[in-house]
């Protein structure tokens, strides 16, 4: 309750429609423009990767050349020229890799400070947030906090580049185990050219003592971002993971094609939360990020994976965080808020694949469309023949603001086992004049009234976010809807 209030207060104070639109002036080391085996060799060499990984990348690349871009999503955009982008951009000062935070370029620290992400551990300890952060700036991880403290519990939290060097066995075993290199057009592209991302391993029976988070920032122009995140929760462990993202305001479209793989071994639990606030483009739809992301988690016996996402940014969002419920008694959850305004397009949802017996899944998706935006929920619930006693509950609610936007729901349910229970509920509603007038009659200005009503609509999902991020997400709801009434 207090949080909603605080948030509204903060929204009231917030100025500017996209406040992360600044560019950091920093020397950048780039790969040559375009995509080829040479580009991939360049990336692999810069990262001093072992031979097996280069071979894995090249195989993915060769496979990618045989694939065609998927066109089934309800989004429209001009064809992407994959030769026009840069696939690697790193701040020069970080080329040798900072060994401690003191060596991180002050400009970078400044950038993250502006974004409200504390990279200095003492700031975190001073009570700002109890979160360990891996900060990824363009193609490289620039800093990871609390590594040593986490190591005491045997927890590994570092950039995936470091993990390749320091924990090659774990990486080799699990990389591509949930999202194979040949999975889909964008995931395969990512496998070929991924540059950095976060890696996390929680040992058996360990409850991670703090939130782990990755913060992605695209800074360089004409650069794609291809990060790769791998989280492994060993038997009986627990971790809560957050990711956030922003980018400067630019007229061009930039491609972000990430892959996130989660592995939850027997009795483990992973809670993965995303607050996605990539630059959405301007009111006329110029610029903005193409967010084409593959996220999937694998649950072994009695394991649980819970995805929570708040998607407010990007010109186009194409994203379906999924769970493969392989182990008996495993649980998958998906909580989503997707807000589109102006010319934004979002096609997002989830896949729940029930493989093991007595597996359960729950999907709560809230779509809010304003301006001339398009929002689609796309979901697949599949119950395999051997998944006896499986249950799914899906609820999709769409909220429309104004008369020029659209919301679509495309659910796909395949139950191949007679004992399965699958429920689907969907609603579509409009923010009513009556609701707005009622709030205004109580002295609440119109835009704040809208924020209040929309936050109420999303409440079930926002409650799933860790405390600190819930505040941020509620703020974002208000900011994303600016200018959509009146």
């Amino acid at each position: 309750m207090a949080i909603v209030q605080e948030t509204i207060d903060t929204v009231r104070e917030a100025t500017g429609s996209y406040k992360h639109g600044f560019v950091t002036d920093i020397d950048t080391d780039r790969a040559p423009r375009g995509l080829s085996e040479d580009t991939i060799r360049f990336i692999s060499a810069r990262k001093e990767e072992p031979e097996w990984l280069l071979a894995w990348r090249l195989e993915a690349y060769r496979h990618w050349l045989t694939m065609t871009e998927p066109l089934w999503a309800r989004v429209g955009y001009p064809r992407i020229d994959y030769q026009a982008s840069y696939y690697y951009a790193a701040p020069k000062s970080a080329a040798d890799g900072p060994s401690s935070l003191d060596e991180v370029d002050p400009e970078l620290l400044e950038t993250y400070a502006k974004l409200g992400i504390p990279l200095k551990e003492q700031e975190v300890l001073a009570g700002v947030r109890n979160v360990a952060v891996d900060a990824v700036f363009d193609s490289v991880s620039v800093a990871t906090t609390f590594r040593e403290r986490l190591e005491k519990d045997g927890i590994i939290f570092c950039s995936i580049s470091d993990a390749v060097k320091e924990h090659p066995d774990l990486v080799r075993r699990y990389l591509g185990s949930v999202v194979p290199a040949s999975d889909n057009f964008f995931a395969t592209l990512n496998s070929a050219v991924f540059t950095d991302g976060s890696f996390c391993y929680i040992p058996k029976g360990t409850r991670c003592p703090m939130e782990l988070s990755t913060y992605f920032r695209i800074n360089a122009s004409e650069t794609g971002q291809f990060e790769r995140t791998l989280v492994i929760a060993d038997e009986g462990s627990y971790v809560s993971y957050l990711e956030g993202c922003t980018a400067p305001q630019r007229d061009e479209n930039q491609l972000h094609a990430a892959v996130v793989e989660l592995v939850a071994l027997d009795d483990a639990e992973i809670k993965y939360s995303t607050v996605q606030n990539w630059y959405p483009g301007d009111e006329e739809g110029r610029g903005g990020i193409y967010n084409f992301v593959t996220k999937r988690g694998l649950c072994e016996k009695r394991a649980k994976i819970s995805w929570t996402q708040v998607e407010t940014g990007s010109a186009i969002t194409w994203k379906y965080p999924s769970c493969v419920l392989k182990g008996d008694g495993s649980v998958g959850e998906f909580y989503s808020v997707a807000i589109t305004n102006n010319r934004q397009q979002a096609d997002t949802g989830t896949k729940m694949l029930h493989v093991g017996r007595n597996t359960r899944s729950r999907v709560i998706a809230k779509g809010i469309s304003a301006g001339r935006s398009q929002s689609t929920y796309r979901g697949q619930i599949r119950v395999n023949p051997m998944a006896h006693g499986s249950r799914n509950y899906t609820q999709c609610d769409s909220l429309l603001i104004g008369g020029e936007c659209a919301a679509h729901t495309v659910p796909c349910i395949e139950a191949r086992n007679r004992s399965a229970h699958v429920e689907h509920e969907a609603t579509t509603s409009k923010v009513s004049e009556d609701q707005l007038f009622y709030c205004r009659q109580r002295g609440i200005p119109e835009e704040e009234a809208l924020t209040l009503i929309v936050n109420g609509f999303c409440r079930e999902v926002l409650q799933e976010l860790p405390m600190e991020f819930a505040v941020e997400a509620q703020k974002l709801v208000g900011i994303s809807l600016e200018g959509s009434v009146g």
Partner: protein
Amino acid sequence: MTAGSDAVTSLLSIAGLRVAVGGKEILKGIDLEVRPGEVHAVMGPNGSGKSTLSHVLAGRDGYEVLAGEVLYRGEDLLAMDPEARAQAGIFLAFQYPVEIPGVPTATFLKHAMNSVRKARGDRELDAFEFKKVMDARLGELSIADTMVRRALNTGFSGGEKKRMEILQMALLEPLLAILDETDSGLDIDALRLVAGGVNAMRSERRAMLVITHYQRLLDHIRPDIVHILADGRIVRSGDPSLALELEKSGYAGLVSAA
């Protein structure tokens, strides 16, 4: 019409107000003076324009003002946004309070209260201070605090919704409270509770406009002045005995006699 109106002491001054909805004239020339401390009852049959009057005063969209003016504390009320009117002390207790799913009632109340306080230049209350104020009002109105944890008006009974309106009025401390058919849908116990809450708020500074179809509410909230609204005009004004007369002869008798 109240005789001898005095602009200096007037809180609300309506002159020659004509209003149309969807091209149809509903209010056909309303004159009304309300001074601080007065309780006016506006009575009338269905379709006489009672709700239109309350909505126009609160600033709802969809009403076209054809002629006339409304001064509130000497200012042009019709030029103000709904939120500005609320912040300036006008409160409308809705005939049909609106449901806002997912927004806890207490959150809404704190937000409304702080919006009004902020506009008046008062310091906003923090969560702790607000809770103290709210708890006190809840006690006075015999409202269980479980109710303010539920989403605003969502799934509330008719009586609960009306009590919630009175709670909001008590928290926002308006200068002009407009009660739009607050008695509709209430059983006698709920009516007593609501009327008790309203009576407790009567004060020298505060005026009330009680809009109702039936006399029975006026057994509980005693007005100073009673107006009969018929076909978009105030056809009779007088002391509370007018309401009793109405009870006997019905609207038809009174209107034709006018």
